[in-house]
């Protein structure tokens, strides 16, 4: 695995970097700002993390002539029904995320939800999220998390959100010159293993990509990270590397995931991996606790470690700009 740089943004604002001294030109390859109240902005240009600035910089970039073609918001891990001390009111924080989305200066065209919509897969929990997200007046594209397929192998999820999907709920669509792919990696998990896509989905993916031009920017979204974040806690996908091998020929690939309840970013060649915060509760950084469960923070700190990810496609610059912002 050459050409890897990893950026880990943490709530405390520190940045860890893993530089490979492999002689590859890294001109313009700067750093990703960590959480700083108004959030972080990482600009992915032609697949390469190009420059960095805090929120307001996006506006100045647009003024500089980068025509905005499409913007969308990623939200994740709303865990409707969770009521433990890490967040006794997940309804309020999801509503705060909606308020944040509705207040964006550049309204998104749609929303991606990368799973764990509910905590326990009940119809009431799905209904509540649907009601809250309605007030965005935006179309929402979903992929399931493991909490959404608890008792029925995802039948209820697909009944609600998978009308145009294949198999366990995977699908693709084109929007403003970008090819979006929603994958399901929370089904048929093997004992001792990580997330799983399975052979049926992988062959569908290979087939789906056949008709897509290599210059078309690709956005892949799935619940569990497709890259290996921390296998000890199950934070990765067993056959994720195979899926990514089909994406190598494309000039710009952005992989958006949830599951780990914290932002993390890695750039590998022309692929940018990014995970979003939860709107419900934070989880510890890899290995920083005994297990990956909900992390209790002081009540006045909670909304600082929850958030949304705003993604803007700047067509003339062939760039996807990812802006993470906390709920407070």
């Amino acid at each position: 695995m050459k050409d890897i740089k990893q950026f880990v943004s943490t709530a405390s604002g520190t940045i860890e970097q893993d530089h490979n001294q492999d002689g590859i030109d890294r001109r313009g390859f700067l750093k990703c700002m960590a959480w700083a109240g108004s959030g972080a902005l990482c600009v992915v240009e032609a697949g390469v993390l190009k420059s960095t600035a805090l929120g307001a910089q996006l506006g100045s970039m647009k003024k500089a002539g980068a025509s905005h073609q499409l913007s969308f918001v990623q939200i994740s891990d709303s865990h409707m029904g969770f009521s433990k001390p890490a967040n006794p009111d997940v309804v309020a924080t999801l509503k705060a995320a909606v308020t944040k989305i509705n207040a964006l200066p550049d309204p998104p065209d749609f929303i991606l939800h990368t799973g764990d919509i509910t905590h326990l897969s009940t119809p009431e929990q799905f209904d509540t999220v649907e009601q809250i997200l309605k007030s965005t007046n935006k179309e929402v594209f979903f992929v399931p998390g493991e909490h959404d397929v608890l008792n029925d192998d995802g039948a209820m999820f697909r009944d609600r959100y998978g009308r145009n999907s294949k198999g366990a709920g995977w699908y693709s669509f084109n929007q403003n010159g970008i090819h979006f792919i929603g994958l399901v990696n929370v089904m048929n998990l093997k004992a001792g293993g990580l997330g799983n896509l399975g052979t049926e989905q992988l062959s569908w993916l290979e087939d789906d990509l056949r008709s897509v031009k290599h210059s078309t920017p690709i956005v892949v979204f799935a619940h569990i990270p497709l890259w290996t974040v921390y296998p000890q806690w199950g934070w990765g996908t067993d056959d994720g590397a195979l899926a990514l091998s089909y994406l190598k020929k494309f000039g710009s690939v952005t992989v958006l995931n949830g599951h780990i309840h914290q932002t993390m970013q890695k750039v590998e060649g022309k692929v940018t991996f990014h995970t979003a915060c939860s709107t419900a509760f934070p989880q510890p950084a890899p290995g920083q606790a005994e297990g990956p469960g909900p992390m209790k923070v002081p009540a006045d700190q909670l909304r600082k470690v929850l958030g949304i990810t705003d993604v803007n496609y700047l067509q003339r610059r062939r760039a996807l700009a990812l802006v993470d912002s906390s709920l407070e």
Partner: protein
Amino acid sequence: MLRLHSLLVAILGLTLILAVALRPSSATGQTAAPQAIEIKVDNFTFSPAVVTVPENSTVTWTNKDDVPHVIASTDGVFRSKGLDTDDHYSFQFTKPGTYTYYCSIHPKMTGKIVVP
């Protein structure tokens, strides 16, 4: 003669009854009685992770985590619903064997029940 015959039949019958009555106890004489075993699901681990139990024992898993878990045997012998915090799931092991199981939504969590 008739009396003696009746007595013999009675003795034979009693012997048979005794033999039948005693058989199970002699067959299971070296096996412990079924037990009720508790397994705690806490911090994304099963404890104890490996348990050996006599035939017909009932194992009960209790979820002590803030997130749900699903107890599922790897070969489909048993599978719980999603267990929320403090929910229980019980299964009686009526046949000898080695039963490996895991949490079907956190597959890094694995355990084993051995019934000799």
